[in-house]
């Protein structure tokens, strides 16, 4: 069973809206990093953030106290539904499923809630903040805004979670009574998250992200959301999803990625959207691609958009769909000229392209892939 992408929505540090972000990527634009600091620490970090003003248009009461992660999700989800021409009402609310992909979740409110507990004691813990710390808070807000009454899942994982959520959508849509499944990946940034990734030696202090670099200098975190509406009809299909597996060491990641790429390249593939983010996963993806489909054109968006973890899989699927639809790939930024992969180093025509592989490698043991096809 192949599901089709009926609509897409995108909230990124490069702007909101699928077409607007796509245009900026084609132009070779890169998100602007802003410093992020914390009262109890001297160190500050750089992150690709979204100004709160970019998502203040939504006035639903459920979002009044919600963290930005929920606003990003709602903005992207509503854009995707509108693009799909789906208006949710009481007649069809039960025929739409909602699946969220999240990695770090509502870290801003979680920190704020726990800070109160640590600094002033349990009696200062806020009953208003606590519900927003729960992983499924963004999904529940969007379900309430839309009036969805049936299946709602929040899937958590690392950077691969977006594709795992799409696979779940495919399984959920085996239920013929469902017309659509809205899949949303969303993430927000806090200083705490940057510090954690830095201590894990995966974050660099300032841009750029250098994809496939030998030095593995690290990533820059970003925030936002991506949403796709999956339906039974549409010009671009999710032709095959490969759940991959879980790795312990980098070499195992490469082995699993090889299996994924082998499986997904059984038919002719025109280009690959890589999840290269300047960390060890780049070598794993490069190794797998070079061994299985060395001639494939590869694009990596994270140097331009940052590593949005839970949202990244959806972003990559949107990129793949846009590239198939428009027959063009944006330029890969900050890639060393010595890299042996066939990268889209400048804006590149892929006219007539029919299929694309999306590789999604997380830094915490999960990898997955999928293949998009233009009908």
């Amino acid at each position: 069973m192949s599901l089709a992408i009926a609509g897409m929505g995108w909230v990124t540090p490069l702007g909101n809206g699928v077409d607007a972000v796509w245009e900026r990527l084609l132009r070779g634009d890169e998100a602007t990093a802003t410093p992020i600091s914390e009262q109890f620490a001297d160190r500050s970090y750089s992150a690709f953030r979204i100004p709160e003003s970019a998502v203040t248009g939504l006035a639903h009461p459920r979002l009044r106290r919600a963290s930005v992660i929920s606003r990003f999700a709602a903005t992207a989800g509503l854009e995707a539904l509108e693009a799909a021409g789906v208006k949710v009402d009481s007649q069809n609310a039960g025929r739409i499923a909602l699946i969220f992909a999240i990695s770090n979740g509502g870290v801003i409110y979680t920190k704020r809630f726990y800070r109160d507990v640590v600094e002033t004691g349990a009696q200062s813990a806020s009953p208003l903040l606590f519900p927003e710390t729960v992983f499924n808070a963004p999904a529940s807000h969007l379900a309430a805004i839309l009036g969805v009454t049936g299946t709602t899942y929040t899937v958590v994982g690392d950077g691969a979670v977006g594709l795992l959520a799409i696979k779940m959508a495919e399984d959920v849509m085996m239920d013929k009574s469902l017309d659509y499944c809205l899949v949303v990946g969303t993430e927000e940034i806090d200083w705490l998250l940057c510090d954690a990734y830095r201590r894990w030696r995966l974050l660099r202090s300032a841009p750029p992200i250098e994809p496939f670099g030998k030095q593995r200098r690290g990533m820059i975190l970003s925030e936002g959301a991506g949403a796709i509406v999956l339906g039974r009809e549409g010009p671009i299909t999710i032709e095959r999803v490969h759940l991959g597996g879980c790795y312990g060491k980098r070499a195992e990641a490469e082995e699993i990625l090889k299996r994924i790429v082998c499986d997904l390249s059984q038919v002719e593939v025109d280009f690959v959207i890589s999840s290269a983010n300047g960390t060890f996963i780049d070598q794993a993806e490069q190794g797998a691609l070079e061994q299985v489909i060395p001639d494939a054109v590869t694009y990596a968006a994270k140097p331009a958009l940052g590593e949005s973890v839970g949202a990244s899989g959806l972003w990559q699927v949107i990129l793949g769909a846009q590239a198939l639809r428009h027959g063009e790939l944006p330029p890969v930024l900050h890639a060393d000229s010595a890299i042996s992969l066939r990268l889209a180093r400048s804006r590149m025509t892929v006219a007539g392209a029919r299929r694309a592989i999306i590789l999604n490698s997380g830094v915490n043991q999960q990898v997955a892939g999928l293949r998009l096809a233009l009908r």
Partner: protein
Amino acid sequence: MAQLSSTTGEKKPARVAVVAAGVVSPLGFGLTETLNSLRRAKDCVTAVTRFSVAECRCKTAGQIPDDRLLAGPNKKPRAKRLHRASHMMIQALREVVMQLPQFEPELTIIGTTSGGMSYGEQYYRSLCRSGNLRHAPTWIANYPAQKPVIDAQEEVLGVSVPCQVIANACASGTNAIGHAFECVRSGRYQRVLTGGYDALSELVFTGFDSLQASTPEKCRPFDRHRAGMVLGEGAAILALENLELARKRGALVLAEIVGYGISTDNFHITQPDPSGVGPRQAMERALQSAEISADQVDYINAHGTATIFNDAAEGKAISQLFNGVPVSSTKSMMGHSLGAAGAIEAVISLLALRHQFLPPNINFDALDDRLDLNVVANESRPAVVRMAISNSFGFGGTNASILIRRVEA
């Protein structure tokens, strides 16, 4: 392996067997200890020892003793770094593999709410106090929600299985089992591991306390004097397999999952719709999915948190759908283990089916007079149990129910 119907050519849904189960909870380690605690109506809720609760209203929880949990056979340094939740998952999966050494899942679907939250707390506290951050990489690496699942697979199965972790608040465990059931029933998968886990953490404990959802008293589900929940922790895993394939290879079938219902009520982020519409829809959809009527259900393992709002809404929904079917909330004995609850309670329902008894709802004095329920009060009792329904409801208005059927040997 869904079969083609001979008349319509449409795929007939596959039947879904539970072929092994493992559990660790305050009720005990493994199925046998759990069964004994249920039969004896043992109150396994104790004073919280893991962190200070001096400023909380609630002082108790269902807890798993570390001296047993961490005393497993693995003495490798890596094992010491793992989160308690990983140890719980390892214990539960070991029990599954002891029953079924050859089980090779295609997919693992697990529910949780908070992953390795206590490691996040340690990291934050150390940062604030400019304390020792030498262990920070360990805390950070073992914090993510998928980590205990991957650890258990690596440690016990020794293979890499793709995993999907569902975080639908307190419904997570039942959602995970329900989705796994749908995956096998559709014929897309033959063998899936499923279940749930959660370990106690200060942040979550304080959170429920701040909502005044937890009680300083005993947990008394459906009681007139109920005052709230107590938290718990644990893990449970079920091995699901296409029933036909399981029988072909001569596997022992512990039970059959026959139905799953999910609903979202959108009323409030922490409170259920007082009309009970969410729980009712979840149970109705489970019955429809199983193609059975409510009078075929012999036992209801309720979500039954003992909060005023949950029990009122769930009790209303149960009495609207079922006529005098015995109900108990086993959270009264072990606390509410959040993402693990649905999985542990599925195992409890399975034990009720296999051993033909009704697990008790302890600390029960008198039924809330606004409810019309047949509560299994204070003691377990023998009964003919052919079909059980297990409910889990969570923040965000997410509701899930699964139906489990006894399988004759």
